């Protein structure tokens, strides 16, 4: 009997204490919620590459958590010269200007060359093949107009809390962008 009474007593005191603590922790959580929602922008963000900062180091191909990187090459066609000798497409000193694999810079054959009219050729990206290695981007940027560049493709990107490519990027070129404008394409007019 004595045990039961004693039990009841200290259970009540503990219940009272824990109730009070629970209330104060709830208030703390509410405070945190208020502080972050008050300060934070309500907009969702996604990761994207600033193509003007990109140094074409090739880490995008290897650092993404996806086995096949979410970074792909994209083409801003209105910057392109539609060159016959495309330095993004061909190896330096190619044997011939044709689509033979030994002449191509792209290791996976993801860059597709199609004839439009003499002397213009159009270069498009076969996205499922592209690994984001930036070899073509380097060729195009160093010797051409720089119309080929890398972008994070958001149909693939998992939007990790901390982008592991951003962590590895030597140029700090990967940053968060508002989700309603998730791409940062190059253009002839560089906005600074």
């Amino acid at each position, binding site marked *: 009997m004595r045990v039961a009474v004693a039990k009841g007593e200290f259970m009540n005191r503990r219940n009272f204490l824990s109730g009070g603590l*629970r209330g104060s922790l709830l208030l703390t959580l509410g405070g*945190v919620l208020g502080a972050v929602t008050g300060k934070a922008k309500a907009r969702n963000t996604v990761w994207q590459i600033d193509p003007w900062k990109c140094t074409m180091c090739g880490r995008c191909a290897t650092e993404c958590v996806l086995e096949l990187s979410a970074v792909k090459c994209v083409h801003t066609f*209105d910057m392109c010269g539609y060159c016959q000798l495309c330095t993004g497409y061909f190896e330096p000193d190619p044997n011939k200007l044709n689509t033979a694999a030994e002449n191509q810079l792209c290791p996976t054959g993801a860059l597709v060359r199609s004839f439009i009219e003499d002397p213009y050729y159009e270069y498009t990206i076969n996205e499922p093949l592209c690994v984001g290695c930036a070899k073509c981007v380097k060729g195009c940027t160093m010797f051409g107009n720089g119309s080929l560049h890398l972008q994070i493709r958001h149909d693939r*990107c998992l*939007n990790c*809390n901390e982008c592991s490519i951003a962590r590895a990027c030597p140029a700090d070129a990967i940053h968060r962008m508002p*989700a309603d404008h998730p791409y940062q394409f190059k253009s002839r007019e560089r906005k600074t």
Partner: protein
Amino acid sequence: MAQVVAQRFPPPQFTETSHVLPVPTEPAVRALGLEDLDLVVLIAALALVSWLVLRKRSRRGVVAVGIFSVLYFGFWRKGCVCSIGSIQNFAQALSDSSMGLPLVVLVFGLAPLLFALFFGRAFCAGVCPHGVLQDLVLLKPVKVPAWLDHSLRLLAWIYLGLAVVFAVTGGGYIICQYDPFVPIFRLSGSLTMVLLGVSFLLAGVFVGRPYCRFLCPYGALLGVAASVSKWRVRITPDTCTQCRLCEEACPFGVINKSSVNAPAPPRVHDKRRLLVLLVLLPVLVAGGFGLGGLAGGALARKHRTVNLAERIQLEEAGTVTGTTDASNAFRAGTDSVDSLYAQARAVQHRYSVAARWCGAWIGLVMGLKLLSLAIIRRRPDYEADQARCLSCARCYRSCPQELQRLGLPVPEPPKATNG
């Protein structure tokens, strides 16, 4: 301001065909829709596990939801965003007002804590893919000695402090970076991290949930919330008869023995110890604050800007030859070396301030731990420790009354022994 970029080749002038220049496609953002789904699944799973643990008292149900969570949050959603990592977003959002906090992170950070305040650590039991993965490999639990268990549990609080330091100083999210299980969920990752994950799982075969108990900073926070939870795991569905059958039922060693039959401890000795520890607490905090200052410089070297500034300094001084990708990228940009050095100094300053507070935090945590060990609580029943209990529901069936309730055969109670 817009500047026209130098073009080596003019745009094409089509004369024979009327070819229209295509525009690059903009695939829609897939992740955001999935994130909304994650929120629904998270809340549903939390509610379901809470019900299964507290109401249904079903271990099988918890395991079933747990397996679903590992498959969904782990292998399909690749373990990100997770509640553990969300701590860093909160720290960063609170310290830097320009930093946004997405809704998904907000809910992942707060919902499990809110549930823990009412229903205990349902999140750990069957929602967190990291926890459930370790739970599933636990085959031969060994008992971790109490002193070791208590000391190792401090690591989680220290890890929490360090994670906050790196998050508020812009040094990256170390919890995400050194997450041992995410490479397993993604089936890819650096060799070191994969090996770390595998060794955690191997250790987890014998030591119940090593990451959850000794390292998980979110688990530490959940423990605080759960320690005052409104409803909690009760081993017996009825009244405890002190049969001691549940004593060894918990693989995580969190069942507190009843003090009904234990002799009352000598009180005078206890009070003196309590007093000493109360005096020690501010000493530990101050000591940590002082020592933290020493660690600041070392921690800052992990930061990108500091790292780059050091490299540039070496290159400028001619101590090293050659360049790195980062130093090349810096030199290709418009920033001056001096402004880089100034930025690096500012970062170092932030680190030294943050590290001091982190040191004080570690001191505080150690002091409070010692205090909590010095306070002896009297318990009428065998009970799962509210803070440390992971709500896995393993202990229920060790209770003969539970077996009776379920209509299962009840084993003979062990012979009463002294002590």
